[in-house]
């Protein structure tokens, strides 16, 4: 087995684990977004390593998928950041709290009517 591939599979696993841990324990939405992106990075790394990146040019199909994935990740992050800004305007905090979300959204809907 190619030792380079082993190194990058282990790295991918570590990033994914760290990202998931961060997602579960972090208190701020912005940091949770960072950790979701970390998890994505781990999966991308795994895809390319398994596509043969350690030995030579990796298979073009996973490469194209990861390229698509990188753009999708930035789109999703941008949308999430816009949601975060709106949420902070409504609630005055950058944390997640289920009841507060419901209250703030209800208030906002009431205002619109």
């Amino acid at each position, binding site marked *: 087995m190619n030792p*380079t591939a082993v*190194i*990058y*599979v*282990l*790295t991918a*696993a*570590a*990033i*994914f*684990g*760290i990202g998931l*841990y961060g*997602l*579960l*324990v*972090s*208190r*701020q939405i*912005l*940091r949770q977004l*960072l*950790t979701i992106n*970390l998890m994505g990075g*781990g999966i*991308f*790394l795994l895809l*390319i*390593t*398994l*596509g043969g*990146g*350690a030995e030579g040019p*990796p*298979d*073009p*199909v996973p*490469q*194209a998928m*990861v*390229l698509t994935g*990188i*753009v*999708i990740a*930035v*789109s999703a*992050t*941008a*949308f999430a950041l*816009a*949601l*975060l*800004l*709106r949420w*902070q305007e409504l609630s005055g*905090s*950058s*944390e*997640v*709290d289920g009841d507060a979300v419901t209250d703030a959204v209800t208030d906002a809907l009431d205002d619109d009517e």
Partner: protein
Amino acid sequence: MIGLAIDSVLALGIVWMALQTVRSDSLFQAMLMFIVFGLLMSLAWARLHAPDLALAEAAIGAGITGALLLVTWRRLQVHGPDDSNGPRLMTRWLALPIACASALLVIIIGWTALQLPAVPGTAGELTLQRLEDIGVSNPVTGVLLGFRAYDTLMEMAVLLAAWLGARAVATEFRPGVLPGPAHAEVPLVGALLSLVVPISILVAVYLLQAGGSAPGGAFQGGAVLAAGGVLLCLTGRLEAAAQASALERVGVILGLAVFSLTGLIVMATGGPMLALPGVWAIYLVETALLLSIALTLVLLFAAAPGLRRAP
């Protein structure tokens, strides 16, 4: 041997940066660590023989995402101090075994897949054999526009949807949504801009043109062009406008429209949908994609309906 050493150091650096992103006390520091993480990832792509991904990661993953994160952080500061004592989804002691188990799962998947014997006739091999049919020699561009064009079309749709979504949730327009042109009057900044913005356009066009035969393509080029636009926004040369101009509206949907239309015309003339008829069509679609990607990313950064030149 020395390659293995570089890979190990790089891997350690990536893991360390990921750890710091999660662990550091200040959110600002975490964001910086995340940006450095993206840069190290782009080195990892280069080590894994995927220069297309290295370019995309450096320009989009680290550059544009970093700019978006920093500008959002700044906007959050304007609204109020960051209160970092919110509730966690779960306690550390519950999260740790879950994270370890999921990392183990990734290792098992990777280990199993590495043990599998190579299968002949994968999609990638077929692509490499048939690259000449579509007229580009960069296999990644070939896959993106020749063999999996649906993916690329839907990717543009996702980008457009993200922008529309961001517009939909944004509050009513306020002129101050961009960080103020704090450095607008510094002479050095003007000199730098007058060099860097034309160079970003040049590099974007080069990446687009090179994408057929070398690393590059619409997405990398679009991100570089967007970086030029972000610089113009940051230095107050471009301002947020209350309304998108007709040109901007066309620009945002240009990639999707040109791609779909080309695909439909091909279908109307009897070919399969989205099968691009020749190299000129690939470059036409890529140019439209590049313009749309760049404009959408800049508008997402500005969090404004449109942009106009500052007085």
